Structure formats: C-alpha cells, structure tokens
C-alpha cells in the first residue's frame, strides 16, 4: 500500500470502484427487468385466468406494465372489478 492509498483509507474515502459496483448492480437489475413484450402478454393472460376465478373483471380495460424509477422497479397491474364471485362452498366431508 502506498502513501496515497493509505491516506485515502485513513480519510475513509472510498475509491471509484465502489461507485462502479453500485452502477453495475443497478444496470444488471434493470437489464433483467427488460422483459420481452411476449412475456408480458403471457403473464397478462395467466393473471386474467387466475383473477377471474375470484372476481369478474373487465378484461379489456386491464393494464399490466413495468414501472422503473431510480429507486426500484415495480410490476403494475391494474384492473377494475365488476363483481366478486360468491365464495365457493367448501365441500362437506
């Protein structure tokens, strides 16, 4: 360790690699969230199937999207509920 790096350590100044690593981790995360349009369409279809078992929903006005901000990413799923199905009765044993 030379004098400069010792000084850096003593002053607790992180090197540029700390920034590099943070940027890298963020880039990899957003890269992976970049989903093919097909995948999103498949997910929408599956979600409609599942939700329709519990609620009557308007399939046309349903929207699915991925929202990215600097802090985090979120899967946004928005659908108006038309009616709730009646709870299925538990079969008697």
């Amino acid at each position, binding site marked *: *360790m*030379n004098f*400069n*790096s*010792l000084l*850096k*350590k003593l002053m607790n100044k*992180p*090197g*540029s*690699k*700390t920034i*590099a*690593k943070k*940027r*890298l*981790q963020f*880039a*990899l995360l957003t*890269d992976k969230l970049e989903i093919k349009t097909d995948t999103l369409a498949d997910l929408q279809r599956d979600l409609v199937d599942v939700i329709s078992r519990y609620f009557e929903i308007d399939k046309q006005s349903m929207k699915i999207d991925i929202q990215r901000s600097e802090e985090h990413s979120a899967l946004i799923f928005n659908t108006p509920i038309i009616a709730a199905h009646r709870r299925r009765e538990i079969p008697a044993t």
Partner: protein
Amino acid sequence: MDGKVIVVTSGKGGVGKTTITASIGAALALQGKRVVVVDMDIGLRNLDVVMGLENRIVFNIVDIIKNRCKIKQAAIKDRRIDNLFLIPASQSDDKDAIKPENMVWLANKLRKEFDITLLDCPAGIEQGFRNSVVAADEALVVCTPEVSSVRDADRIIGLLYAQSISPKLIVNRIVPKMVENGDMLSHEDVVDVLSIDLIGLIEMDDRVVVSANTGMPLVLQEDSKAGKAMQRIAMRLDGHPDLPIENPMIQKGFWKKLGSKFSRKN
C-alpha cells in the same frame, strides 16, 4: 473417447478472448493434449497473427464447410509446440457463410481428432457467437474489471445458461495497484455481481503486447505473469480443477512488505 469443445467468449470486444485462446491452447498442448484452436471471427481473422502463423494459411474454416478441402489441409500445425493446430477464419466471406448446423458437424469431426477444441468467439451475440455456442460443450467467459465489460458478460452468461452451458469466468487485465487503491473492481466484486465460478485471474502484462508483436507464444516467455496465469487455467481445464487461483498482487520490496504488515486491517 471424444474430445471436448470449449468456447471462449465475452460479449464485449477487446477484452482478451483471442489472446487467451492462443495462450491456453498452447499451454494445453505443452501439457500433452492434442489441441486445435479455431478462429470463429469470419471476415476479421486475428488468431493467426496472435499465434504467429499468419503466413502459413492455405485453407480456412469456410473452405472446410464448403467442402473445398479436408480438415487436415486447413489445420495449420504449430512448429514450435507439438500437437497444437490452428484452423483460421476466412477473411473474405460473409459472417453468415457458416450455419449453426455446419458448426455442429465440424465440432463432431474435431472431437474425434483432438482432445480439446478451443473456439475463439467474435465479440457480440450475433451469428459468430451462435455458431460457436451450438457447437460447444463448455464455455469460458472473459471480462475485464470494468462496468461495461462485466455487464456484457452477464448477458452472455444468461444466453449460455439458456443453452444449458454453465460457463466459467476469467477476469483479465487486472491492475493490482488500482485494485488496492480502490479504483478498480476486484475479482471478488466481479464474482459477487455475476455469481458464477471463477477459473482464472490474469493481470495486465506488457509481455502480452510483446508476444502479440512477435507472434511468439506467451506461455513460452519465462517471465510473463499473464502467461503463468494462462498455464494454470489450462491445468484447471485439464484434470486439476482444484488448483488454487492466485490473486495478482503488487510486487513488494522488503520495506513495503513490512509496512503492509502493520497497515493491513483485514
């Protein structure tokens, strides 16, 4: 028993694929394996000059595929290192002169003739990459400790997994002094981000440039640290998977060594 086909790839260009293919190929041949290295960069060949075999080219890989010659006629034998052969790329053909099925066929032929086939993949994820990957049993991913290079490596690793290949990582062009100063990602950082197995660490070494200038194999140069690192990677590929990976470090004199004893925190 059939030999194995290993692709050397990276995503980002200029990180050392060709240098590493040439050196590991030479090292494996010196360890007694029958080795062929194949330049997959159709239209932009490079491996021949790095190996110092450029003036011996008669036929190339496209000639083999188009049935204009036998594999034996196109494979150039290195006269300095026994059992080392090069199949050069074509300089005049289009990138799509070779189809994936052609490469599968060629790889099967090479498995019969050679213990190890190394494919020097072009940068990018296009035809040359796809051709190399369909033919490969194993993969080495090369990156440098830089954000763009590691990110591209991550993409490549994903694509390889999709082809059921679990690649191993080589971090090249490490500058120990910068790592120590905190101005270069350490290999721990890179491995942490990519979460993949490491197979070698190669430092920045002037000898690499000298070797490329002269066409003299790096592993034949006594004093090359990069050459030594390549030899150890070759051993890990060939029967010694657990050979420890050495961390490139700053050469220290007596006083510096003493100093670091006192200043080391962890």
